[in-house]
Structure formats: structure tokens, C-alpha cells
């Protein structure tokens, strides 16, 4: 199994969710996150004083999938989250040893 993690623009995460549902993914975990990449932060002005805000708000999506689905899921997320502008985010894949469904105790792919 693989854990697919994506960091995307907040206004794109609904598009990603829809695309993943269409693909057949039944559940994802979403966290509000902050960070910066090449986009860096932005500047805010309060009473004339400029503040560099280093962190940009992002959504972090996590979904555990079968090994063979991982590549497709990455493609689906990358396509749905893309605006073509700087700050679109990242998607990465990491191995997962085991998964347990808390309600039933099922393990492995049966728990997905």
C-alpha cells in the first residue's frame, strides 16, 4: 500500500476531492496546513507597516491506496490541483506497512 500526500492550494482542494471520488477513492483526510515553497509568502500592510507573512495557507490531503493505484491517484490529484501558477503544491508517495480499520479490525487492503 502507498500513502499519497498532496499539498494543494486551498481553493483547489474541492476539485481534487471531486476528481478522486470520480476515480473511485472512498475517503481522504484533509488538514489545513501552512508552508512555503518557491511561492514564498506575501506582504500585508497594517497602518503603513509592511509585514512579510512567510507562510501561505495550503490544504494537505492524505489518502492510502493500493500499490497499483498510486500512480494514477498522483496523476488525478496533480491534474485537478493545477492552475499553472507558482504555488500549486506537491504530491508525493510513501510506502505504508499496514492499515487497520478501527471499527471492524480489518487489516491491509481490506481496510481501505
Amino acid at each position, binding site marked *: 500500500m502507498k500513502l499519497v500526500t498532496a499539498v494543494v492550494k486551498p481553493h483547489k482542494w474541492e476539485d481534487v476531492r471531486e476528481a478522486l471520488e470520480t476515480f473511485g477513492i472512498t475517503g481522504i483526510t484533509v488538514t489545513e496546513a501552512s508552508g512555503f515553497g518557491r511561492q514564498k509568502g506575501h506582504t500585508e*500592510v*497594517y*497602518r*503603513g*507597516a509592511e*509585514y512579510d*507573512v512567510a507562510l501561505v495557507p495550503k490544504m494537505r490531503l492524505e489518502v492510502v491506496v493500493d500499490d497499483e493505484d498510486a500512480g494514477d491517484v498522483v496523476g488525478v490529484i496533480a491534474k485537478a490541483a493545477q492552475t499553472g501558477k507558482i504555488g500549486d503544491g506537491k504530491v508525493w508517495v510513501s510506502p505504508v506497512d499496514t492499515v487497520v480499520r478501527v471499527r471492524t479490525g480489518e487489516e491491509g487492503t481490506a481496510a481501505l
Partner: protein
Amino acid sequence: MSGNTAWVLMSAALVMLMTPGLALFYGGMTRAKGVLNMMMMSFAALAIVSVLWVIYGYSITFGESDSQLFGSFDHIGLHGLNGAAVLSFVAFQLMFAIITPALISGAVADRAKFIGWCVFVVLWVSLIYFPVANWVFDFGADGALGDDAGWIVAWGVQDFAGGTAVHVNAGAAALALALVLGKRLGWKRDPMRPHNLPLVLLGAALLWFGWFGFNAGSALAANGLAATAFINTQAAASAAIIGWLVVEQVRDGRPTSLGAASGAVAGLVAITPACAFVSPLGAVLLGVLAGALCALAVGLKWRFGFDDSLDVVGVHLVGGAFGSIALGFLSLEGGLLYEGRDIALLGKQTVAVLAVGTFSFVGAFIIGKAIDMTIGFRLDEDSEVEGIDLNEHAESGYDLTAATRGHRGLPGTPPVGAPEPQDARHDAGDKGSVNA
């Protein structure tokens, strides 16, 4: 007569609301970790000054005396005061005495020990505000401006509702305290953004609403003077929003909500001394200039390196001084732009600003230093970094995460002082364990 009393009592209630409004205005401008302490400084002023006022404050401010500098001890405990007129005046003037020290708190965000602040309020209001209020607001016996009136008002200085006594006074003390306490840790380096601008706008709105009591109420009667002050107050506040936002648009490229809220307050500050002495067009001019001037003045702290956290100096000292001195030009009674001009008025207005500002600055500096050297005024570094709310009040302003919402619903360690658990399950010593 009862109409006048009704208006003064109503105005006193309006002015009372300004201090909680100020708490919201300031509270929204601090970081989230200091919002409660910031608001508590205003509420502390409400509590402390009200009690002092009843015990001796009114008496030493307005008690009959031959002095032009302070009152007397004739009305300790409000003894011997009877009748609607004087008692409604006692209530009205109390609210001014509350908000003036509360205004100062904006200069010391995030870093003043709460007990130090409370002692400061007691000493500053007793030694600085009560005398200055006598100078400006004590019209003497029968309001005749005789030898027993306060020296500023008796001298012919025009300060209708407290441009000097309230705003210059608080602004100068704020500068002194910012210097005594020093800069917040990380000042200029860390972003110290307002954490809740809707609170700031709500606070500004409540201040504005209350200001009708402050200014129009200072007529102490439901008459044409009150109505004039009311209209001029509205005109100046509105014009000052425009003045502030134009500066932001030109300088920064965007008008901000904080600028609108600040502009309104700057205009209200500037019109405070002037509201009964200028024409409506004069009020518009005064407002737009005050808004623009204060928008520029709030940058001074960066240049001179003092952490007047929420710009009490830039708005109240500068705005109050500007409104007071501008009367030398814009007053319908002696201003240089009108018939009957009198250059002496400009001089008197300037002297009054300098006198009150100097007295308050020096007094606040000495009081602040004395507190710092005895019980300590500045919070320790760890507490400041972690957050003053948590360390001075054992509270947090907001609980917005699911993790701390307390919906586990199962027994754990009960809070200290919680009622004895009835259910046997609660006897389990281990956190979160449930006896089957």
C-alpha cells in the same frame, strides 16, 4: 431641566460604553495570545477608577476650592452632593476619568504585569488625570469661570470635550509608558499583526457611538450646542476615514479596514476639543486633515524606535494636539480664519497642549519607573513569549481546535474544585480508563 438631566445621564451611559468599545478596538489589534490582557486593562480601569471616583476622585477634581489646580476634600464619598444636575455631572465625568487611563493601555500591549498596570491606573489617575480634569473641566462656582475655575478653562482655552484633558493627556502618558516598559520582544522582527480586524471595527463603531455622548453630552444640556457638537462629531469622523484611506491608497496602494477604523477614531479625537466651536465645514476640514495626519504620524514609532504598540501616540497625542491647536485657526470664536480673529487663542491652545502633554509625560514616566523599580512593571521574558493571557490570567482568548474541546465525555482527572463524582466509574485513577 429634567430633559437636560436625562441627556446627561444618557450621555454618561454612552461614554461608559466607549471603554468596552476601546477594549474591543485594542483587543482585536493585538496578537491572539494577548487579547484578554489587553481587554482586561480597560476593564480594570472601569473597576478601579469608578471606586476611586466615588471615594475621592470627584472631590479632588471638582470639589469647591480657591485653587485653579485641583478641587478639595469636601465631597469624600460623594458626601453632600444632592440633586439631579450635580449627580448626573458626577456620573458623566466619571466615564471620562475611566476611558482616559484605558486609552494608555494600547501603548503597553503584551508586556505589562497586570498588577503593575492596576497600580499605574490608581496613581496616574489620582496624580495626573484628576488635576488635569480640574484645569480643563472645572468651570468654578456657578460655571462663572472665576478664580476658582481650572486655570486652562479660566484662561480662555477652548477644549469642549477633552482634547487636552483626555487625548493629549493619555497620548503623552502612553509615550512615557512605551519608553519605560521598552519594546516587545521581537519588535520590528516578528510580524505583530492584528489578530481580529472585525473586533477592531466593532470596537471603533462602539467608540463612535459612545462619542456622541462624549462630545454632545459635554454641552451638559439638551440644547443647540449639543446638536452642533453632534453634527460636527459625525462630520469629522467621516471625513477622517476618507483622509486616512486616501493616504493609504496613495502610499500603500490599498485602503485597509484597519485604516478606516483608525481614521474614524482619529477624526473623533481631533473634533473632541473643537466640536462646539467650529462650523460643519470646519469639522469636515479638521477631520480630513486629522485622518491624513494621523495616518502619517503612526509611522513615527518606527523611525524613532519606541514600541507604542497600538499607536496611542500617533492617534491620540497627535490627533488631540492637532484638534486643539487647529482651533486657533478654525474656531468661530477667535480663530484666525474668521472675523474676530485673535492670535492669542492660537497661543493659548498651544500652551495648553504643551502644559498638559508635559505634565502627563513627566508624571507617567516617574510613576512608571517607580512601579518598575519596586513591584516590577515589565513581564518576564518567558511569560511574554508564551503569551501574557496564559501567564497573567491563566486563560486563553480562543479555543478553536477539536483537540481541546473537551468532548471526550469519559472520566479522567476532574478539574481541581470540581464537584465530587457520583458515578463509580469516576473512581478510576487512570486517565481515561473505564471500569468494565
